[in-house]
């Protein structure tokens, strides 16, 4: 089942939906698909000028985690009005290929 992203805003400097759109710039280097369409992003919370993304990776202990986290923080930090970006990495619920969006599956040639 495709992941549903929870969007939370409290006195938000930027809309959470815009922050989510920005994350489509961040690619998984193994698959070449962005983290949103892979279904890795579970929630985006914007409180004032701070953005926190709760997300997972395709496998626990993924050796690529540092780079993906860095790219996510970098993409969010470039948003106007954002002065703090954080990533919370979780393994529950675990990612499965079914979490991908139709666009993600299309990019990988499944559809």
């Amino acid at each position, binding site marked *: 089942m495709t992941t549903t992203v929870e969007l939370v805003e409290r006195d938000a400097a930027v809309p959470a939906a815009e922050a989510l759109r920005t994350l489509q*710039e961040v*690619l998984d*280097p*193994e*698959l*070449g698909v962005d983290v949103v369409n892979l279904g890795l992003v579970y929630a985006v919370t914007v409180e004032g000028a701070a953005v926190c993304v709760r997300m997972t990776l*395709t*496998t*626990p*202990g*993924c*050796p*690529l*985690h*540092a*780079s993906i*986290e*860095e*790219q996510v*923080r*970098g993409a969010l930090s470039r948003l106007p009005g954002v002065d703090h970006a*954080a*990533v*919370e*990495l*979780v*393994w529950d619920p675990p990612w*499965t*290929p*079914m979490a*991908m969006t139709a666009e993600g*599956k299309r990019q*990988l*040639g*499944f559809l």
Partner: protein
Amino acid sequence: MTHPPGASGGAHPFLPVSALLGGALAMVVGSAWLLADPATLTSYLGAPTAVALTHLFTLLCVTLVYVGTLQQLPAVLLVTDLAWTRLGFVALPLLVVGGAALVHGFAAGFRPGALAAGGLAVTVSLALVAAQTLRTARRSPPRDAASRGLVTAVCYLALTVAFGTLLAGARSSPALASSVGYAPALHQTTGLIGAFLLGIAASGHKLLAMFALSKGGSAWRVTAIAWLVHACVAASLAAALAPVVGWPPAAARAAYAVATVALCAAGALQVVEVGALLKRRLRKRLEAPVQRYVLAHAFLPYAGVLLASGHGEAAVVAALLGFVGLAVSGMLVKILSFLTWTAAFGSAPRRAAPPPLLRELARPRLEPVITVGLATGAVLAPLAVVTLSTPVAALAGAALLAGAGAQLWQAVTVVWRALGPDPGRPLEAVTTR
């Protein structure tokens, strides 16, 4: 930023990267050796040159890649930090030096000094690696069949060398031979089945699912493979000890039959498991190295047919070069890409340009040469053993050399592309998906 503890805590990338490059180089040396002396395959396979060549392949190629990978893989599979992350700086050089001494000792006509020194170094090296893996597993006990299988396979790897050292001792000491027997089959079974088949089955269960985006295979099959491997090794041990403890020859034959049945069942289950993983995959077109890993499993039935037709030695050659060789080769390129990419781009400061994709580190045009070369060599080498044809053995050597040469070139390319002076520079258009 917050993340679960130990998301990825392997050793310094220099260790696995150098081990994987060393393994690729050893494959080139072994193939060139076979091409230069193809009669090695068509004469007695217990002869010094054949034993030396076998150990060059198993120790300095397969085991070196295996141990290098173990400096990262347990941390990924067990989701914890690797214990004693600098232990590899001792274990890997010991393995290389000891392995080289063993190969030299065998090639020089079973020279006792070189064999004793090499055997000791390799035994200590693999005991250290086993201790490191067990310590890591103690920090985060394996929660699935694949992780348990990998930890067990590492123990079998250390046991294989211990059996090999006993074997070498028994060869030169009649007293030792009379007390522990002389059982090359036990050494081979523990290594080929316990360490390599179980290791490939366990790690492959996770890695193939990850690379093929599969919804997963069946954990019970991996568990069953592990138990069949245990049964195979136990029965081989019983067959080896039968003459020592005075069991009748019929008991030894029965134990050998049990070992063979368990071995065939484990191999068949592994083929079924890979088929199930592929059937449930979302990524329809696999990358070339992953295709090579899958192709490796075609050599299990090939080895089975050879075994059933009474060509046990050819079956071992097919299993080693075809199944183990191709599986290791496929994972070598994938794992090297992950390791070097992570080292180059994983925790680097923010860059103006996004990092390359992993597949952009390799040269796609080398992949068919690697796969066709290694697979052709692995088909021809057992045929050379069966037919005693030196020209076929030479052809096998040439094919293996072509594949191994392309593999080394690919490995160096990946490392250079990620860690060289201009990391991330595009090599060529990549269309793999």
